[in-house]
């Protein structure tokens, strides 16, 4: 027991010494919470890369408010428990005042409660669930923002486009029952489409984390003979489903949301498909082209070619830029001021000009992209 006590004492002394020696240099810490492991590591890596790119660019320009920006990257696994731990850790141990993340709503929601209580600004690049920025009584969480559309907007844009421009009258909806993003888009699409006078000829759910074989659903699609199939999932599911649909001889075009946006989208299988997105790489705006160039220079794929950013990288980049611009506008490392600056921001992001509404959702336009001939091309722009 004595030995144990003396050991403890030594460790304690060491610890105090180490802590005491710490000097706080002028740095601004920004936490990046991303699912680097767990079910969707690929989304986490894209998000982290996009956010770090923005931070590095700001640092190259001399930081913000004369402070160097230090990123604190944490793995939040797209799962509530680790996300809560990661958020608690960056807030309490690293004393971070700004969080960029998480990707998944189910991780962002518990983080937002912690961040809001601790008056830490959180800006989620891609969590589309309305509950991220709004609490259960309907009040806006003061310190929480997002950089993406919420579900209803994208689904609405998609449905309107399908009905008015593609003249689709019958739609079939396929959605992932366990993914709130996909489910939200599907519900919004259904509501708008039926409101416009279209008919939903079938609605089938699958489990995106588990299913790779969509034959049974596609057989139903074939039987229902829709004009369009709405599949607002991520590109990995889209690749699987569209390829199997082609093998089943289904010709109705597929349509989806920003989850489709990836250099890994199988353009051959999804040929003829449409999707709503935040921006088009064809867009000649300087923000877009500079971003594409910078991203390609910073990250290479396995063949050492410049990597093409996906929607997650673009939104993480935007979210980080929004945050840092707001800090600059606020003029101080003070979350109350930054929060006010965020609310009044008008920022030209890669995904369009962003302003915030009362619920801290960005007001921005959407573009509709078409997959043709192995390429993704710009089709039309939809104002907010």
């Amino acid at each position, binding site marked *: 027991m004595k030995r144990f006590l003396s050991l403890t004492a030594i460790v304690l002394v060491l610890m105090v010494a180490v802590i005491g020696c710490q000097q706080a240099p002028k740095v601004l810490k920004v936490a990046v919470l991303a699912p680097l492991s767990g079910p969707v*590591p690929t989304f986490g890596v894209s998000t982290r890369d996009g956010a770090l790119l923005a931070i590095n660019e700001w640092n190259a320009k001399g930081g913000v408010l004369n402070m160097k920006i230090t990123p604190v990257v944490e793995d939040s696994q797209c799962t509530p428990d680790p996300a809560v731990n990661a958020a608690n850790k960056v807030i309490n141990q690293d004393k971070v005042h700004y969080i960029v993340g998480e990707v998944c709503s189910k991780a962002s929601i518990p983080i937002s409660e912690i961040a809001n209580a601790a008056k830490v600004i959180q800006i989620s690049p891609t969590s589309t669930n309305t509950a991220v920025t709004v609490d259960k009584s309907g009040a806006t969480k003061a310190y929480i923002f997002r950089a993406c559309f919420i579900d209803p907007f994208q689904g609405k844009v998609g449905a309107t486009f399908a009905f008015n421009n593609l003249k689709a009258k019958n739609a079939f909806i396929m959605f992932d029952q366990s993914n709130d993003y996909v489910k939200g888009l599907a519900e919004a699409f259904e509501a708008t489409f039926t409101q416009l006078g279209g008919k939903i000829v079938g609605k089938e*759910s699958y489990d995106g984390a588990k299913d790779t074989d969509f034959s049974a659903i596609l057989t139903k699609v074939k039987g229902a003979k829709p004009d369009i199939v709405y599949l607002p999932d991520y590109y990995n599911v889209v690749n*699987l489903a569209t390829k199997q649909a082609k093998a089943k001889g289904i010709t109705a075009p597929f349509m989806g949301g920003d989850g489709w946006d990836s250099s890994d989208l199988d353009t051959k299988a999804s040929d003829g498909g449409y999707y709503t997105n935040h921006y088009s790489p064809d867009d000649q705006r300087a923000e877009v082209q500079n971003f594409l160039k910078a991203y390609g220079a910073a990250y290479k794929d396995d063949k050492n070619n410049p990597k093409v950013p996906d929607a997650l990288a673009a939104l993480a980049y935007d979210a980080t830029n929004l945050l840092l611009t707001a800090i600059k506008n606020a003029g101080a490392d003070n979350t109350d001021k930054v929060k006010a600056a965020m609310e009044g921001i008008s920022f030209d992001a890669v995904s369009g000009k962003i302003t915030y509404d009362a619920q801290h959702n960005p007001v921005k336009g959407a573009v509709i992209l078409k997959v043709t001939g192995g390429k993704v091309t710009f089709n039309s722009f939809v104002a907010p």
Partner: protein
Amino acid sequence: MPEKSDLPAAMSGISRRRRPPLAWVGNGFLIIVAVLAAYVLVSNLAKNPIEFLQNVLDGLKLGCVYALIALGYTMVYGIVKLINFAHGDVFMVGAFTSFYAVSQFNLHQWPQMLFPAIPAGISLVVGSFTVILLSMVVCTLLAITIERVAYKPLRDAPRIAALITAIGVSFFLEFFGALQFVFSPRFIPYKSPFDTTAWYIQGGIHPIVSGQSSPDNTISFSNIFLIILVASVLVQLFLQFLVRRTKIGVAMRAASFDKPTARLMGINVDRVISFTFAIGAAFAGLGGVLYAIAYASIWTQLGILPGLKAFVAAVLGGIGSLPGAFVGALIMGQAESLTMSYISTPMRDAVAFTILIIVLLVKPTGIFGEPAGEKA
């Protein structure tokens, strides 16, 4: 909570001769469930037989994929009584090996590259076989390494320690593979050594041209479906032959029956176990390649669910039994496909597992399982 609960007749050996009372209640319950399921299926068969047949075919494809993995599970389990959770990840490595062989080295075209005179068709067949062989070899080596490093030292430890190690190996392969410089965490579109084509049947067999619709109410199938079907049957026959007719097969059966005695009979049990792991992994590699060609999207966690389903299939068929694994896999495939089509898509897994539990209740060691003589 009753403290001295009334207990199943099977447990109290005295009443074995007499017919247990009230047995009709439980049987009636099962019969009602079975009749309901049969009603759903038959009514749908009557409604649209072609669509029904199509769903059966789709289920068959799924089942054959499970079968390829399940065989490895069941062999390893039969001998070392270990649920080798890393098996699904070996399967994943097989898929990735073939992906790199094809996309980076164009291995599927080697005959044509070396001998330009060879007809394209033969070159493709030989090349594809080379890719598959390479994947099988890589998987075999990987499995032997895993066995040596992780399982062998634990052979005399409690069985659960090896199980936890297996889970650890599985995590390791998934997340080490997900590192940027290994396989990367992305969902990668798979570059297939040959194109998949689909056909439909309507008074003959017609190919489906991509982007064109096929007539309604026809049955469609693809070349990869045929390959998977043939491969799983061949593998099944080969393993049957191996286990029943060869010397090593006899050794395997002996080792699975009683290891110490097998050792006394001069069988090198360690080598037999390594061999079992190797052969299971080789066919997992084959399965991985075929799976990747069929579904054309790979990532590092692709093995988890097929692996799990395959294991469930192996259990359903009676774990340790080769034909059991095959039949179990086919049942799992049909259960999933038909449930998805005619009962409820979201409840698919729930229904599949309910079937499993019911089958186990009726036949506690699976369909082909041997009655539990030893305490498993």
